[in-house]
């Protein structure tokens, strides 16, 4: 009962903030609405006893991704009118994509039953032998799915290196501080003590 009330409360907030993401005029407000959406989604996952996923959602998306996103959005001077001018034109495309996505999710959950482990009535995540979510996920990732897991890790590493390599370019005439040189500086390099004979009064 209580879980149901909480679920509907969080779901309402989630939907409202999701609409806020696409509806608000200010891109910073949109980004903040997205943060709220992630938070409520995490709360709903907590209700489904998927505490590991919920906390990781907050950790990764709210704590890191959205901070950088907000960072960029605040720095850019986005002309919102220009972006919104295409809203009605692309509206139907958006609806179509949303419907396809919804059908796909329903297909995965209902037709495949997520490996037939989901109890559709209670809707709770199945509780396995180990009582902790993190333990179970860890066991699955490092035993059964160890190769896909490591493959994904290597792929991410490649992506990180690629991003750095693509954006790193040496411009000419760029003044860069060499901290090693700065620290290694001795007094003799910077300071010259002159001996000036004092002027004599004639």
């Amino acid at each position, binding site marked *: 009962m209580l879980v149901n009330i909480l679920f509907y409360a969080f779901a309402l907030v989630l939907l409202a903030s999701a609409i806020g993401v696409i509806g608000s005029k200010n891109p910073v407000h949109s980004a903040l609405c997205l943060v709220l959406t992630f938070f409520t989604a995490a709360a709903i996952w907590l209700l489904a006893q998927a505490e590991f996923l919920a906390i990781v959602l907050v*950790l990764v998306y*709210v704590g890191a991704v959205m901070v950088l996103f907000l960072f960029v959005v605040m720095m850019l001077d986005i002309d919102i009118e220009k972006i919104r001018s295409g809203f009605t034109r692309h509206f139907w495309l958006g609806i179509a994509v949303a419907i396809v996505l919804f059908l796909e999710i329903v297909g995965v959950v209902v037709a495949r039953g997520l490996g037939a482990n989901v109890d559709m009535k209670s809707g709770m995540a199945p509780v396995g032998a180990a*009582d902790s979510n993190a333990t179970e996920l860890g066991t699955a990732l490092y035993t059964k799915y160890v190769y896909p897991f490591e493959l994904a890790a290597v792929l991410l590493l490649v992506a990180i290196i690629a991003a750095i390599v693509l954006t790193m370019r040496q411009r000419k005439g760029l003044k860069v501080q060499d901290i090693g040189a700065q620290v290694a500086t001795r007094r003799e390099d910077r300071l010259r003590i002159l001996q000036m004979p004092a002027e004599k009064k004639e």
Partner: protein
Amino acid sequence: MMAWWESLSELARSTAVSTLWIIVVTVVLILSVAYLTLWERKLIGWMQVRRGPNRVRIFGFLPGMGQPFADVIKLLIKEIVVPSASNKVLFRIAPAITLIPAFAIWAVVPIAPGFAIANVDAGLLYVLSLTSVGVYGVILAGWASNSKYAFLGAMRSAAQIVAYEIAMGFALVGVLMASNSLNLGVVIEKQAGGFLSWNWFWLFPLFVVYFISGVAETNRAPFDVAEGESEIVAGFHVEYSGIGFALFFLAEYANMILIAALTAVFFFGGWQSPLNGYVAADSSLFQIPLLGPLLNDGTHWLAFKLFLFLCLFLWLRATFPRYRYDQIMRLGWKALIPVTIVWIFVEMLMAHYKIGPWSP
């Protein structure tokens, strides 16, 4: 009274008990923050051969002890100025957003042997995720103020916190490997066995990295470029006055207490006594009246360790000049993160050869 209590449902009873604990912890925290501000001014005063605040007394006694209350009352009755071109809603909620995580994390911190308000299995992840939420308050305050100085401060702070969070997370990965659990209670229990079996001994580089990142995360000196007064006036909270400013202040000190507590929990055995492990649990030493319980495990050890780390925070502030911004970034990305990664590999070897925390 007891019968009425028994008649309540399980849910109602646990909610009531938790609420009571939350109120107790919050009140204690707020009082600690108040006296931490005084202790900071006193300690730094002594370090710099001054006296520190010594005028406001409580009922004519204890010179200086009334200072926190005088400060709070002054800030409360000051006018709150909201800049006319600011984003009013965000401007008002930003201080609250910085403050909430600093208090919410205490839910999972084990404050007494075997007790935390919420004994969460993924407690360590909860700590990490909430510490990363605190940055929003700073960013929003800087942006909503619609002021260049505030915005510059917010940008600096955001980049700094994101950078140091990675080092912090990696340092905690090392703690995870040593304790084999995400539960903070288990993290402490795994360190049992006295002063030298606490995590700091085998994970010393990680402890140093964690504490430095903690100082950087709380925007304390020498990492306080977000409010570097010589460059950008007061940084992200330049437009805040009265209680809005006080909330940022409160959040900063609450975060300091939190980082000190977490360092004690992760690396110094939390509530464990340093004697625990050298002296048998049923030894006659612990039977001595008054002194015995003090030497045994308990919340007072957590408080004591926390106090030492807080003094370290203040000592750093009294001693070091502010870092230059590029040096902060360099330290975070090029020094602290590689150290943690190397030490995780070392831990891997230790685990393989069954050394230290992994010894059977």
